[in-house]
């Protein structure tokens, strides 16, 4: 393929000599496309392999499918104690709760930090920034004890309630950055029209910060969907498993002969992330570019 594309540009180059300046963009494209393919090849191969009959995973490194089989999906869906639908639903509940929690609590805190004047603001703001970098391991043991005393183990509460309390401070920061870009004159005009702090927030700021809310929604969706550590710790009853915990138990409970169905369920678990990426990449790229996390 490389030589062929090269030849076409050379002939298209009419009379001019083959200079480096002329073939340079082409070389760059070939290198970029090549490395992109190498990077994504394993993932593409996993999707293809999940559609092949059983043992081909160990034999065929190619990505051509001759006959498409969905038996791996059928087997994988019912390979664990519960049908996979159950785990998808559990994950969906955790994700939905986390999104609502983050949107409500982080936008409130962000409004306070970006627009309101109150004593101790700088201090709390610094604490908030520091808490972004705090490793979860430092708090996980007492949190576990706390939630287990509340009887919350094997419920979704330990995974959702912290989000309602804005513990994902990263999003507070992201929203603060965004609100600062909204002209203060709008608040001022609303204030003169008799709006209080709460209605300025509800009627002016919230509608204008929809892009930041969208970024938060997509990141929360992907991170919570992928999150493993806390779900592994809080959900030990197979009935309550979320997708990542269920997948992991798949690794433990099956012999190497069921790689096909394991791949199939892995693909199922990646589909929502991939869709979120497709629909939301504009917000994702902007989100990391302006705040620089993950």
């Amino acid at each position, binding site marked *: 393929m490389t030589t062929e594309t090269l030849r076409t540009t050379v002939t298209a180059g009419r009379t001019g000599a083959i200079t480096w300046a002329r073939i340079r963009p082409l070389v760059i494209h070939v290198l970029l496309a090549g490395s992109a393919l190498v990077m994504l090849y394993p993932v593409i191969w996993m999707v293809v392999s999940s559609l092949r009959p059983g043992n081909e995973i160990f034999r065929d*490194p190619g990505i051509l499918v001759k006959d498409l089989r969905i038996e791996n999906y059928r087997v994988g869906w019912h390979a664990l104690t519960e049908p996979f639908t159950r785990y998808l639903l559990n994950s969906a509940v955790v994700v939905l709760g986390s999104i609502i929690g983050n949107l409500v609590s982080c936008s409130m*805190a962000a409004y306070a930090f970006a627009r309101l*004047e109150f004593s101790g603001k700088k201090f709390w703001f610094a604490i908030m920034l520091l808490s972004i970098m705090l490793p979860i391991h430092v*708090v996980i043991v007492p949190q576990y004890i706390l939630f287990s005393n509340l009887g919350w183990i094997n419920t979704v509460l330990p995974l959702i309630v912290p989000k309602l309390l804005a513990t994902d401070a990263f999003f507070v920061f992201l929203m603060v950055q965004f609100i600062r870009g909204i002209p203060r004159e709008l608040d001022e005009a609303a204030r003169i029209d008799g709006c209080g*702090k709460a209605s300025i927030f509800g009627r002016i700021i919230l509608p204008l910060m929809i892009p930041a809310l969208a970024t938060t929604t997509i990141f929360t969706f992907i991170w919570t*969907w992928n999150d*493993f550590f806390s779900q592994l710790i809080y959900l030990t009853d197979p009935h309550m498993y979320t997708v990542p915990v269920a997948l992991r138990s798949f690794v433990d409970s099956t012999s190497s002969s069921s790689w096909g169905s394991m791949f199939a369920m892995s693909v199922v678990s990646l589909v929502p992330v991939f869709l979120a990426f497709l629909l939301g990449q504009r917000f994702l790229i902007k989100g990391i570019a302006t705040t620089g996390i993950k």
Partner: protein
Amino acid sequence: MSALGELGSLRGKKPVGQKKDNLAGYLFLAPWLLGLFLITIGPMVASLYLSFTDYNLIQAPKWIGLENFTRMLSDERLHNSLRVTFTYVFVSVPLQLAIALLLAVVLDRGVRGMAFYRSVFYLPSLLGSSVAIAILWRQVFGTTGLLNQVLDVFGIEGKGWISDPSTALGTLVVLNVWTFGSPMVIFLAGLRQIPTMYYEAASVDGAGVLRRFFSITLPLLTPIIFFNLVLQIIHAFQSFTQAFVVSGGSGGPSDSTMFFTLYLYDRGFGNFDMGYASAMAWFLLVIIGVFTAANFFASKYWVFYDD
């Protein structure tokens, strides 16, 4: 612009001419403050206390002074987990950032289809922390995995990359390097900030591609490199999922992928040795803190601020 920059510039900010409204401020901050004390600071203090106790979740915590910490000094598995973690962090982060920077520079030079490549390279960053990708890695680097099948096509005989203690950690390094997309996007945003007139002036003076990179791009990008370095190091120290799933939860073979966080999980949630796990968690916080502080200190000598 970034969280780090914010922390540095906090002191210089002038108050805006607005009347203080403590009631409204603290009402809006209430959920966050509640979370800060109940979910973050409270548990932090509790875990500091627990780190001086012997506690198994069933009996009440028993105060044992510094015993957990002296035990850490002689715990061979813990020392090994530190070695594994340090190797992982200090091999994978520089590699990851170097590749991210290289591709960002290439993409920034007006390549057609830049947005497409950016998305493709960014995608693994979103997938990389999932259990599904860890499962894929387990297969790809297994004895009969994809890598060995491909090597076989070229007549090279592979081996069990994950079952061999000398290469198992390497597969996890590859996985972390694979997620270079997010630092790359941050680099790209940083490259946009460099005024093109610098490059034009340099071209007029006859500076070549390499010269321009080392004399303009690299110095002006050092704040972003620093930012990425701090974040990725903090992040890499806390890696868990990939090692856990790839090693089947054991940190094996022969503890070669036993990250500090895996050992912490094993002590705390595998053996319910909560006092020791808390001591380990605080030790991890100190390690991360020390490296972050050292990073900030060293930055005075190599990070260039253009203002």
